[in-house]
Every structure is written in C-alpha cells, then in structure tokens.
C-alpha cells in the first residue's frame, strides 16, 4: 500500500518567518535594515531641525557670488571677480594636477626602489631599506614642511636675478631657481608652430609603428633591427626639419629679469609650494609603493626566474619579461589604495600655501562666507568623486591585466 506522492505543498503561514530556518535569516535582515534606515532618518531629521533652529539654513547660493580673492596658480582663466564655484573648480584642478603628477612620480620611484631593495648588492639593498623606513615612518606633513622650508632657506632670493647686473644669471639663460619657485621658459606658438607640434606627434606614432614592425620582424624571421638610435631619429629629425623649414615658428618666452623690480616676469613660474608638495607626496607614497612592489615580486614563484634563466635570458630581461608582468597582478590592488592616499594627502597643501581644493573651498571660501557645513559637505563630495574615479580607472586596468582564467 505504498503510495508515492508529492508531499502536500504546505500553505505559507506567518509564523514560518520566525520558525522556518529557510525564511528566518531574511526576516531578521529585513528588520535590521528597517531599523538602520529609521536610525539614519532620525539622525538626518534631527540634524536638519537643529540646524534650522540654530539659524543655519543650508543654502548653496553663495557659490554663485563673486569670490573676491586671488589664487596664485590657476589652470583655467580666473580672477577675483569670478564666482566661488569657479574658485572651487580652480582648486579642484590644482588638486588633480598635484595628485596626477604625484602618482606618476611615486610609481616611478616606488618601482625602482622596490626592485633595487631585492638587489643582491648588499649596499644598494640596505640603502633602499633605509629610504623606505625613513620616509614611511615620518608623517607626510612634516616632509612637506621640511622640503618647503629648506627650499626657501637654501635657494637664492628672486631679487638676486633682477636688474641690469644681477648677482646671479639664469641657467643657460633660460631657467631661474629661486626660493619662490622655479621659472622656466614658455613656448609661444605662432600659427605655423602648431604644424611643427603636429609633425612631432606624428613622428612619435611613427616610432611606435617602427617598434611594432621590428618586433614582428624579430618573431617572424629572427632578424634583430637596431632599436635605440633609429627611434630617436624618427622622433626628433622630422620635427627639427619642419622647425627650420617653416622659419622657426616656435619662440621661447624666457623669464625676464628687467621687467619688474620684485619678480622675474614671463615664462612659466612653478611655485615652490607646488614643488615641495609634489615631491614630498611622491617620495612618501613611493616608500609604500616600493613595499608593494617588493611583495609582488616575492610572490612570483622562484621557479619562474630559474626557468627563465635556464632559457638563457639575462637578469634584466627576466625581471622585465617574466617577473614584473606576473607580479603586477599582486601589485596593482594595493597600489590603488596608495594612489587614493596620495590624492587625499594632497589636502595638506594649505600648510605651504598651495591653493588646492581644501585651501580654496575649505579655506578661504569657507572663511569668507561662513558656510562651514555646506563647504565641508561639498569638499567631501569632491574628494569622494575624485577617489571613486581613480578607483574605477585603476580597477579597469587591474581587470585588464589580471590572469585570464579560461
């Protein structure tokens, strides 16, 4: 009398939400979620009502008012009659500039130091260890201030370069190193100058194409073309020829010692504050990146090195062709967070008077308008956006180079 049949489909009862282990966890998660939302809603409404009561009505209309202050370094057109929003934008671009250049320099130094720290040469290895330990164990603010004040004290005054018979001459007649910053000549393009620039860009692509061709030839026939001087020639010669054929259409705007009694005029002034901040952030972050690189290299099994060596590759090529490409998969994720750290650390810029986002929006604008909460909220938003953007770019790169599992 054994009758097989499906078990009767149980009707759903509310008590099951608690009793049945299949549903219980969802129930509690839902309760926790609702509680969390309620708590945040309470905190938010509490904040809003308290602010209203204290007379702090949140308003962002101040961003449209004229800023009224000047900024000494601006990548876009700015004067003190433009709005606070424009000043904020100038600050944000300055932040991005120092963060971008800082990440590049930190990566270059970090990779070199990280590789050299594993060197079999005892002296080089120890020197790199000392570099890492010194730079990552002193707060970055101290490094920024030290570099800035040493530069200010050690470099000659800008006034030494001024006048008919200056105490110092420009280096090569082009560059001045002063305690206010470095003055370099600027290129002034006449219409034909852009053609020269176009030729130069085109020849860079030409050089890349030559390299591809050489690689292909090597793989196909085993013939090795010379790489060094032909590439150099491809990059430089056409632009040089174009420059002289078109009648030297690019002029140099050199720093002029005679135009003003206080400062060199003309050229591009690179402020001391920017140099100090850029350099300090780079060498500080490079110490961390060096450790990430070292960890990544050590994570590549020794067998890989030995196998490559047994194929007859030289140590240089083993590192570049075998070890580093595999190590990159381990190195990239922690390096992303170092880039984020560098970007956020750039908010220390105000210590040396570099006008970044924190100094414009969170500094002078906040002070002049008194809109502390609005400014800080915007500041958080900007940094969050910048950081997320860096994360997104680096994560995309990471997934491009990671091990393709098939």
């Amino acid at each position, binding site marked *: 009398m054994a009758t097989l049949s499906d078990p009767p489909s149980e009707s759903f009862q509310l008590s099951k939400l608690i009793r049945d282990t299949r549903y219980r966890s969802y129930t509690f998660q839902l309760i926790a979620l609702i509680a969390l939302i309620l708590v945040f809603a309470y905190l938010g409404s509490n904040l809003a009502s308290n602010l209203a009561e204290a*007379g702090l009505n949140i308003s962002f209309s101040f961003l449209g008012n004229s800023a009224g202050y000047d900024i000494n370094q601006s990548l876009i057109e700015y004067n003190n009659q433009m709005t606070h929003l424009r000043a904020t934008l100038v600050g944000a671009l300055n932040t991005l500039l120092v963060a971008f250049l800082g990440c590049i320099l930190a990566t270059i130094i970090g990779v070199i130091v990280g590789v050299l720290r594993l060197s079999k040469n005892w002296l080089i290895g120890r020197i790199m260890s000392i570099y890492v330990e010194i730079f990552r164990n002193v707060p970055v603010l101290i490094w920024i201030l030290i570099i800035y004040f040493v530069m200010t004290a050690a470099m000659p005054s800008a006034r030494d370069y001024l006048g008919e018979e200056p105490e110092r001459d420009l280096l090569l007649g082009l560059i001045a190193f002063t305690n206010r910053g470095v003055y370099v000549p600027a290129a002034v393009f006449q219409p034909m100058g852009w053609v020269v620039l176009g030729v130069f860009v085109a020849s860079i692509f030409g050089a890349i194409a030559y390299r591809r061709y050489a690689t292909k030839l090597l793989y196909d026939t085993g013939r090795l073309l010379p790489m060094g001087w032909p590439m150099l020639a491809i990059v430089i010669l056409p632009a040089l020829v174009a420059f002289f054929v078109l009648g030297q259409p690019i002029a140099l705007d050199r720093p002029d010692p005679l135009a003003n009694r206080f400062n060199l005029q003309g050229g591009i002034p690179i402020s001391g504050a920017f140099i100090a901040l850029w350099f300090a952030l780079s060498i500080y972050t490079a110490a961390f990146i060096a450790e990430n690189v070292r960890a990544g290299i050590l994570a590549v099994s020794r067998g890989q090195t030995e196998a490559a060596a047994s194929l007859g590759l030289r140590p240089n090529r083993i590192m570049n062709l075998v070890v580093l490409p595999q190590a990159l998969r381990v190195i990239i994720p922690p390096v992303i967070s170092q880039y984020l750290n560098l970007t956020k650390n750039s908010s220390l810029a105000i210590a040396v008077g570099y006008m970044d986002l924190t100094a414009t929006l969170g500094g002078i604008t906040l002070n002049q308008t008194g809109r502390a909460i609005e400014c800080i909220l915007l500041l958080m938003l900007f940094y969050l956006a910048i950081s997320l953007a860096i994360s997104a770019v680096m994560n995309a790169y990471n997934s491009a180079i990671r091990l393709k599992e098939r």
Partner: protein
Amino acid sequence: MKKSVFLGALTVAGLAAGASAAATLDDVKARGTLNCGVAPGLVGFAAPNAEGEWEGFDVSVCRAVAAAVLGDPTAVEFVPTTGKTRFTALASGEIDMLARNTTWTFSRDVDLKFEFAGVNYYDGQGFMIPRELGISSAKELDGATVCIQTGTTTELNLADYFRANNISYEPVPIETNAEAQPLYLEGACDVYTTDASGLAATRASFENPGDHVILPEIISKEPLGPLVRHGDNDWGDIVRWTLNALIAAEEYGVTSANVDDLAEGTDNPEVNRLLGTEGNLGEMMGLDADWAVRAIKANGNYGEIFEQNIGESTPIGLSRGLNAQWTEGGLLYSPPFR
C-alpha cells in the same frame, strides 16, 4: 531593558536639541560658567600664560562679562576657536559669546545671523616691506609677491586694493603668523600684509625691527569686536553694555583701584548710574545693581586693559591711535548710561 535605555537616550537627545535656543542668560547662570570663544593663542589678545591661565585683550572682555553676570571673573570656560570653527561654534550654542578679533562686516552680521556687541579694537590692514627695497607707498608694489595670512578678511581687502589701483601681485597664502615670518625674512615674499596691530607685533619680534618699514597706506577698516547669536537680544544687551561700561569707566576716570570708593556714591550722576548707586540700570538687564562695578574690578577699565595687554609698555607696543577715547581724538564713544 536595553531597548528602553536606547529609546530613552533618543528622547533625551531630541529634547536637548530643542533647548539650545532658550535664553542664554539663564543657561549661563544655571551652568555657573560663561563659555567664551577666543583665538587659540594670539599673544596680547588671547593666549594662556606660563601658569596656563588665559589672558589678553579679548580674554579681558570675557572676564568682564563673567564678572557682571556671575560675579566671578574666573568663571569662564575659554574655548579656543580657529578662523574656520568660530562661527559654527557660536551658532551651534557651543559658546555663549565670541571675542576673537573678529571683523564686524555686513554679511557676518546679517547673513550669518550674528549680533556684534560693539567694537573693542579699531584695526586696519597694512603692509610691511624690507627697508632696502626703497618702497615708500603701497602703490609701488606692482608685481610684488605678497604673503597673506589666510582665514581673515585680508585676502579680499588685498584683492580689492590691487584691483582698484590696477596693479598686479602674486599672493602667497600662509596659514599662521609663525609660518609667514620665516618666508618674509628669507625673501620668499616681498611684502607681508595683515592687520596693522599684527604687523607691529610681528616686527617687534624681529632681530632688527629697524630694517623693515610699515607702509603708510591702511587699506581697510577692521573694527574688531565681541559677537553673540541673533535672536537673544537680552543677552546681546548684556555683552554690549558690559563693553560700554568698560569704555565709559575710562572716560569718567573709574579704575579698578578706585571703583570701590566711587561705588559708595559720588557727585557725578553718570558715574552713580553706571556703578548702580542711582537708578536701576542693572535690574533692567536682569542683573543686580553692582554688575558694572564687578566688570570694572575684574581687569580694570578699557584703558587699563589696553595698557596691560597690548599697550606701549608691552612687547606688542601698540599706541592708542584710533582706540583712544573720543575726548582724546579717538573713536571710542560709549552711549550714555541713563
């Protein structure tokens, strides 16, 4: 049990949030101390001395108010505020009054909803430059690199002045006076600009003060004074008239030394009304009759406070200038006590 504690805490938090706008005078009396926002260490104006006690020109105003309201000039909780936190601290009720060399401007008064109780120091922005550059007027500063202390009205005045005179400059914003000094002395900037009182104090600390000149142009009006929140006019009156009492006391010759004698009655009805032997001015404000006597006894009258903290006998070495009584060619002018 735990849940009820949590809900209780929420309720308390909600109630406490609602109470901050009530009468400040009652809060101060109930608390027994006055919370006064000051600068975080500006010698002469507000800085802790070797014993850790706050003293200075602005601190004395706080002490006078505490003496008038609570009867004890030491019943003050000094809250150091930075240029960035000062207004939020006052608006949120963390401090009862702000005495932190703050310039009285339209937007701070109207837009930020504060009430300035008066002016305790008339200042103005000036320029200091090395003597060897041979500059005698700020109009010759075209192209100069200028060190500015940020967090003040200084940046705006500077931008306005150079724009009005159609000359260019390179601003170098510096966070504190201490950082600006080496930059100026090393020649990283040609000019240092801040309030003239600050320039005098800074120059006094140099090795060779004579090598630096303060240019004659004063490019802004900087009336500095204590301020309170909008909306509690009774409390605003107390701070305003305590400051006026200190100024009037100097005018009438009431000092910390003779205030007790004068408080027993004089022939001058103005002094009698001020010191509470005639009329009921204190009562009108919700204080007792001796309020002004205590305020003056705390640190002396305005002139005494000035001389003790920033006057010519101190390292700051400021002359009275605009801050003399109106009877001596200055701007200090207390409305009558009647």
